[in-house]
């Protein structure tokens, strides 16, 4: 198929790098694979084969920098550069190594207002279980032993930006619109969208809010039992849980929302939801059933779920 394959990494600014190191290694079960002299940490999950899926930069701000997606081949970079520019969005090529351990990288600000990176190469490390006669999971390791980075949900300034970002991701980057929440006269506005390049319900989502930022990023777990165990691990370590184990109507995912030591919201997302294929009809949720879509069991809004989140760094 070519083009974008999946979410590769999330890049964040954090307030206390040592607290973050503790948290992501002991609770999430990730491993620090690289440390720069400025204190920047790069972390990896056991079930990921590329070098890292999370970048944490020591900072005076708790903000969101970029989401980076991996494309299949180096030609995809040139291909997408041409397509993105033809759409009227400026791009920049960052030379090999400017994004750590990555080949040349295409950088642009999408119509949603967020900065994205696309790269075709990242240093290969391999899964902890290897690729010859592998065990199903590593006996070693700590905490909830997250499998891999799954998706991110980004906040946009109002439905116009949600729609502009969604259109761009569909038409230029080749994402499939799996689900949407529509509002306004005859549901003419998209207030939230879930888009996929893999066969899972989302690799990215956009939601309308007051500011440009990041609502959460998610790591994959197998199923309900792992979700419950993860919540237990969090409670044992006083992790601030935002939403206790729940089912999403949208994506059918099984979830916990919780915060890292800088207040960035994370999700553990379990289950593969359903199979997304190019001919699958888009699922629509109406304004009235919006909260049923988000929290399937309670069907109700939960506190500051759509208003408390991390702002983009470059705005």
């Amino acid at each position: 198929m070519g083009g974008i394959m999946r979410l590769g990494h999330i890049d964040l600014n954090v307030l206390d790098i040592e607290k973050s190191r503790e948290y992501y290694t002991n609770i999430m079960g990730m491993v620090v694979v690289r440390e720069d002299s400025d204190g920047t940490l790069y972390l990896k999950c056991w079930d990921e084969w590329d070098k890292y899926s999370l970048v944490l930069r020591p900072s005076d701000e708790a903000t969101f920098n970029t989401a980076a997606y991996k494309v299949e081949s180096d030609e995809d970079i040139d291909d997408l550069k041409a397509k993105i520019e033809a759409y009227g969005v400026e791009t920049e090529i960052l030379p090999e190594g400017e994004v750590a351990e990555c080949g040349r990288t295409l950088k642009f600000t999408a119509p949603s207002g967020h900065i994205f990176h696309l790269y075709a190469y990242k240093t290969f490390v391999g899964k902890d279980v290897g690729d010859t006669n592998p065990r199903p999971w590593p006996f070693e390791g700590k905490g909830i032993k997250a499998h891999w980075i799954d998706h991110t949900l980004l906040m946009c300034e109002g439905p116009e930006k949600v729609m502009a970002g969604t259109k761009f991701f569909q038409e230029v980057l080749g994402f499939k619109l799996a689900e949407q929440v529509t509002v306004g006269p005859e549901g003419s506005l998209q207030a939230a969208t879930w888009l996929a390049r893999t066969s899972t319900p989302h690799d990215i989502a956009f939601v309308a809010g007051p500011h440009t930022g990041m609502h959460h990023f998610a790591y994959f777990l197998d199923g309900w039992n792992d979700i419950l165990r993860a919540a237990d691990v969090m409670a044992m370590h006083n992790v601030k849980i935002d939403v206790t184990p729940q089912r999403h109507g949208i994506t059918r995912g099984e979830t916990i929302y919780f915060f890292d030591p800088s207040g960035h919201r994370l999700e553990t997302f379990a289950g593969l939801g359903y199979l997304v294929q190019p001919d699958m009809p888009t699922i629509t949720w109406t304004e009235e059933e919006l909260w049923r879509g988000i929290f399937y069991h309670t069907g109700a809004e939960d506190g500051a779920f759509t208003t408390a989140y991390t702002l983009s760094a470059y705005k």
Partner: protein
Amino acid sequence: MKHNILVRDKSRNHTCHEDKSLMDGLNVYENLVPKGCHNGACGVCKIHILNGEYSKSKMNRRYISQEDEDKNIVLACKVFPKTDMEIEFLPKPKILSALEKKVYILGN
């Protein structure tokens, strides 16, 4: 050790343990504290400390400038009481917000 925290804008008190941030200590009462990220990223817990001794961890400069911090304007989730305190919550700062009133927020 526990201290008494008077939330002036709510005219309510609640005790808060020294080991807990004001946000965590007061959070059991939903109507005393706005719900937020509990760790510094979202800015909903901005308070003015009117009285009392406290320790604090690093503030998110997106929401609290050095000048604010010097005037005892801080994030409640980053403040730990050392004595009885008096505080008041401040409205969430408007950062980009010419837009805020005009923009649809999911669910509002």
